[in-house]
């Protein structure tokens, strides 16, 4: 039984943690949120210099050629710090999409720049306030040009390249393809859109005859490609959620030890003790599911879809609950702008929706379980 990270991976985790504790305290997240910066440039620079952006990108494309497990430990620390950086968009989504499905040429073009942090990438799926689903993909690709509006797109303002879910005609899933759009080429405009968590910039991406090419070489495979990309991202986001839940739990725990009511630490009241115990329970369930997700992702295991869904469902539940009850534990002060509670409250819900809501993932999970159960 070897169901844990290796010493090297734990060491990497420790390095990232130290770096973020030092360079990315909550005051940085606050600055980005209040000043509406696209992201914390100096933190991003540091992460790039540590080579983290290249972690899982093959060496032939300028990366370190490490695996998903290394990305997982990095993700957990980014989550713990609620770091205001485009790592998830650029690496979990854009780079992974290219690594998995890009042609040799496409990889050569984009992966080295993403690995070196020279550019930022993102994934654009959503077109407003409707679920991600083939029927809701209206942005068109025809004659090498993309037209339509994607919203919200995380880091769409800072990104130079986007993997865009497009409609290439046809029925149902076959209608969907993934296109690579060079956002610095013509036909692209982006407008920041206000979200619940301004520490992570989102934009409305308007494409008008923007030059684009299909990711990979066959069109009409976008939906299944997207599904694999989101499975991987779900696992990585789950580690961010575990880190975030742990941080929110620690905030609540520390406050409950220093805050007194009726002559006692509020942490000595069962209402608080059991609340925090419940957070801990959800957080551990999330962590254990995420570990299995990491293993399946790293091995490209057959159970990746179930493991990814389980990681996402448990991760979203744990972090949102932890963030909400952290505010509750703090009482009035926790609801003020000056309190840092708000950053986890915002980020938790942002991550819970980022690659789709749990209610959608539960459908996906149970469909897989049904199939197995029938077999």
């Amino acid at each position: 039984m070897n169901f844990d990270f290796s010493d090297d991976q734990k060491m990497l985790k420790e390095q990232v943690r130290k770096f973020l504790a030092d360079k990315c305290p909550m005051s940085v997240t606050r600055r980005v949120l209040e000043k509406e910066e696209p992201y914390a440039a100096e933190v991003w620079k540091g992460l790039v210099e540590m080579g983290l952006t290249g972690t899982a990108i093959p060496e032939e494309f300028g990366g370190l050629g490490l695996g998903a497990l290394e990305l997982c430990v990095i993700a957990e620390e980014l989550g713990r710090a609620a770091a205001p950086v485009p790592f998830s968009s650029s690496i979990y989504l854009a780079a992974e999409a290219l690594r998995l499905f890009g042609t040799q040429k496409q990889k050569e073009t984009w992966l080295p720049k993403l690995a070196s942090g020279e550019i930022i990438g993102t994934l654009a799926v959503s077109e407003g306030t409707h679920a991600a689903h083939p029927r809701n993909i209206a942005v068109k690709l025809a004659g090498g040009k993309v037209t339509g509006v994607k919203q919200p797109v995380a880091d769409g303002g800072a990104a130079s390249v986007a993997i865009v879910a497009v409609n290439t005609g046809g029925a149902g899933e076959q209608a969907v393809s993934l296109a690579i759009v060079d956002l610095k080429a013509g036909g692209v405009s982006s407008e920041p859109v206000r979200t619940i968590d301004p520490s992570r910039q989102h934009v409305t991406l308007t494409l008008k005859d923007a030059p684009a090419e299909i990711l990979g070489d066959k069109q009409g495979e976008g939906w299944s490609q997207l599904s694999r990309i989101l499975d991987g991202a779900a696992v990585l986001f789950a580690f961010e959620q575990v880190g975030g839940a742990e941080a929110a739990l620690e905030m609540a725990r520390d406050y409950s030890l220093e805050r007194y009511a009726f002559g006692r630490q509020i942490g000595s009241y069962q209402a608080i003790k059991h609340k925090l115990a419940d957070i801990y329970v959800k957080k551990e369930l999330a962590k254990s599911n995420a570990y299995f997700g990491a293993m399946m992702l790293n091995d490209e295991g057959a159970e990746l879809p179930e493991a990814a869904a389980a990681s996402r469902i448990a991760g979203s539940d744990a972090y949102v609950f932890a963030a909400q009850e952290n505010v509750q534990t703090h009482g009035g002060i926790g609801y003020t702008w000056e309190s840092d509670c708000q950053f986890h409250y915002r980020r938790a819900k942002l991550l819970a929706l980022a690659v789709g809501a749990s209610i959608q993932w539960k459908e996906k999970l149970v469909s897989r379980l049904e199939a197995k159960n029938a077999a």
Partner: protein
Amino acid sequence: MDFNDTTEEAAYRAQVRAWLDKNATRKENARDIAPPKDLKEMIAQSKAWQAKKADAGYACITWPKEWGGGGGTTIDNVIYSQEESKYAVPGGIFAIGLGMCIPTVMSWGADEAKERFVRPAVRGDEIWCQLFSEPAGGSDVAGLRTKAEKDGDDWVINGQKVWTSGAHFCDYGILLTRTDPNVPKHKGLTMFWIDMKDPAVEVRPIKQMSGGAEFNEVFFTNLRVKDSQRLGKEGDGWKVALTTLMNERLAVGGSQGNADTDELIALARNTDIAGEPAIRHGGVRERIADWYVQAQGLKFTRFRTLTALSRGETPGPESSISKIVAAKKMQDLGSFGMDLQDMGGVIRDRKISPEEGAYTEQWIGAAGYRIAGGTDEILRNIVAERVLGLPQDIRVDKDLPFNQAPKGK
């Protein structure tokens, strides 16, 4: 069983409607009336409307006429509020003053104070705020630290209050202070009325997570008050405060958000899960059913309370459940409305989000509503202790002198 008025109630309701028709505009016809352009105008409009109500006997309906009230019954008051809520009239900047502060002045103030303050407050000429909560206090109100020290015939007050709504536009306030730190915390408190315009009083708004700022911090630096401003005996402050707090429920309104099950049904019709309309999803339907049943339960619980009032009986304790249920429902329903929008649920833009962003706003607001005026946890304590008769938790500081009781930073 029915929802009908008694003959007297019906008569009163008719009279109220007639008066409101003459003096106000029904909401459905008020769409193009511009909202007040600033705080100043809002206050002016509120004062004018309050004065009108006072002249007609609809301000403080249950108070005796000689104090400027309406000399009516509790149910009269309920009926008036029910009717007024259908009209576009300025809102509750007097709620705390008339609901909590002035009743305290009336029960504990010197005769001169009553003479001086009650009628102007009823007419809305003067606005009052309540100054109890402190940073160190929170749920433990009596743990407050603001000092009042005797100096000749005056008192000198130093310290800080927090969560004071309206402090920035109020004329007067009632202030709970610690006058003796050498006795157990409930015994060393004294209440005063103060002039909020005094230069020794500094008001700073508190910005909330939502971005709004409905509350304030209030700082006192050597604020001098006369002993005649005392409300109740020295050291009786807690007893006095209870008069005020008994009425707190009335004052803690707070919007519970604009999205409920009707809106959720509409949203579910217009969104999908795994490619099917969300409204066909059994889990969505179960949530709609559960929240509908909760909303109905609260509505009919209110009706039971009103019935008791209408029969001249004292309402049972059932009304104490309202905020426990409403606050969590507000948060969960808001959160779920966001989930139905999937990746787009993170958007916080009235022009883009369904119901003008109602789901997002109430999910954020609920984080505060679950705390304001009694956290979920404190309210459960209250139900357990006052309704079910369970013992108080151990109070280690009960008999300790305040200055020796354990405190946080």
